[in-house]
């Protein structure tokens, strides 16, 4: 890491802090009611004071999200591999997938509730249904970009479709896959919280819903901060894993840069 790099990072951090300070000053100077927009300091205090109450809900939302995410990844990889390999599957499934992904998921939650009752199950399913789409698309794209020459070399060796998929296709999709994981984990959060807001008595979504009907706006914002924090944390985790697993895809740029 060069000095320039560190200075850049310090700048970014300073600007983020500055954003919160500006927000605080804005609220103080305009005499804004905390029923409309609470001050960040207020939000942090609420977060700290109510943390023991919030904690089980955080765990609930996190668990729901991760469960939905893992299922979504499994489904997404299987479907993406299928679509990427078979032309017929591609032509059939793609319109269906695009159709499904265009449906606002808030419209689907009541159906899940109808089927499975309110609570954890619809939240997991909503997380799944919202997060698997980017994974399918990326896996399918990765598989479709295998060089035709290499495929010929392997076919001439007598390789089966599965051999090519296993040795070339799937490893090649890894950078696409990890890029999609970062997007998918954020989506999974949105899905889980959405469902909790509509139909659950646990989870951050539910806490925020209850708090807003009690006009406890600082607590609503505390919930938002928790969600944002969790989202950033998971994004970072997947970025780190991505760097470890698919370094080969970005290393080339590093060499050119130095």
């Amino acid at each position, binding site marked *: 890491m060069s000095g320039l790099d560190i200075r850049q990072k310090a700048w970014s951090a300073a600007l983020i802090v500055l954003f919160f300070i500006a927000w605080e000053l804005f609220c103080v100077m305009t005499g804004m009611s905390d029923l409309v927009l609470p001050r960040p300091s207020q939000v942090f205090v609420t977060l700290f004071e109510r943390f023991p109450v919030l904690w089980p809900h955080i765990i609930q939302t996190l668990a729901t999200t991760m469960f939905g995410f893992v299922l979504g990844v499994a489904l997404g990889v299987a479907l993406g591999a299928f679509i990427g390999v078979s032309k017929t599957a591609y032509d059939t499934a793609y319109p269906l997938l695009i159709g499904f992904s265009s449906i606002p998921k808030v419209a689907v939650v009541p159906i899940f509730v109808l089927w499975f009752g309110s609570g954890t199950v619809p939240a997991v399913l909503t997380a799944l249904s919202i997060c698997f789409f980017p994974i399918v698309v990326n896996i399918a794209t990765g598989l479709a970009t295998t*060089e035709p*020459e*290499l495929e*010929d*070399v*392997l*076919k*001439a*060796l*007598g*390789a*089966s479709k599965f*051999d090519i998929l296993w*040795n*070339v296709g799937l*490893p*090649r999709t*890894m950078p696409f896959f990890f890029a999609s994981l970062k997007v998918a984990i954020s989506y999974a959060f949105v899905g889980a919280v959405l469902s909790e807001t509509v139909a659950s008595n646990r989870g951050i979504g539910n806490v925020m819903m209850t708090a807003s009907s009690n006009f406890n706006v600082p607590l609503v914002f505390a919930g938002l901060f928790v969600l944002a924090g969790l989202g950033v944390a998971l994004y970072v985790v997947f970025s780190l894993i991505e760097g470890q697993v*698919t370094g*080969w*895809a970005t*290393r*080339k740029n590093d*060499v050119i840069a130095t």
Partner: protein
Amino acid sequence: MRVLISLVALIRGKIALASGLHALFAVMRMQANSEFSGAPVPSGNAPIAIELSDASVTFGRGARAVPALSTTTLRISEGEFVALVGPSGCGKSTILRLVSGLVQPTTGVVIVGGREVAARAMRVGMAFQNPTMLPWMTIERNIMLPLKIVEPFRSQFRKLRKTEFRDKANALLEQVGLKGFGGRFPWQLSGGMLQRANLCRALIHEPRLLLLDEPFGALDQFTREELWSILQGLWMTHKPTVLLVTHDLREAGFLASRICVMSARPGRILDDSHVSFARPRTVAMTFESDFVALNQKLRAMIVDARSATQEGAA
């Protein structure tokens, strides 16, 4: 709207008819083939490695059919090094794809190693202009990729022989002047080095047949000449049958023991001549009068073939 629908129906009908006819032809072809495969292999001094009997290839069907290769008969003995030269788009690569089983002949038969070709049974070594090394593997592991696919290596790969295979890969790397580069990643190597690794990957499973499609086309003149010598060395030690497609007549003259000149699309073989310069050949030899004369002869034939099509097109 109604006109459109009836038009679509009409086209569908035509397609159905065409595919029906195609199926019929396929059956006829199969019968013809079974007669052929019973015939004895013509005797020569060396066993026949590749035999194309009246093979032709047409891509597409009906009005959109594109003839890629006219009826061609070609026999190549084991251990021969044959270069295919000709104007671009003349079906040279199609012959390679026929021999490797990637394309089935529209008419005629292709026999390789005494058997009719089928993609799953071929196990030939192939190399193209694009080295297509997998970026997430080291060069050594890239070269060992065919061993993961071809029997009998495939079933031995996980068990005892992995170190043995690694030694084998490194021995090949040493032979092409890449000793010590096995642990590097493809992006750390130059174009010429990658192409050497590509040759190693094509040879690692000891194929009896090596198919090269303009392997040195993207390299500079000096690297190319260097690789000619390396390929000559590999051929002289491993003695596979080689079929090389190239645009470079000096390359053909330097490497091949036999050169086939092809006409413009749809290709057929215009000239088939042996090259008898002593081996190992050197780059200096390519500037001697005999070699230059051969070069000029080949060049004249290709120029003629090209102008013939241009007149035909005009």
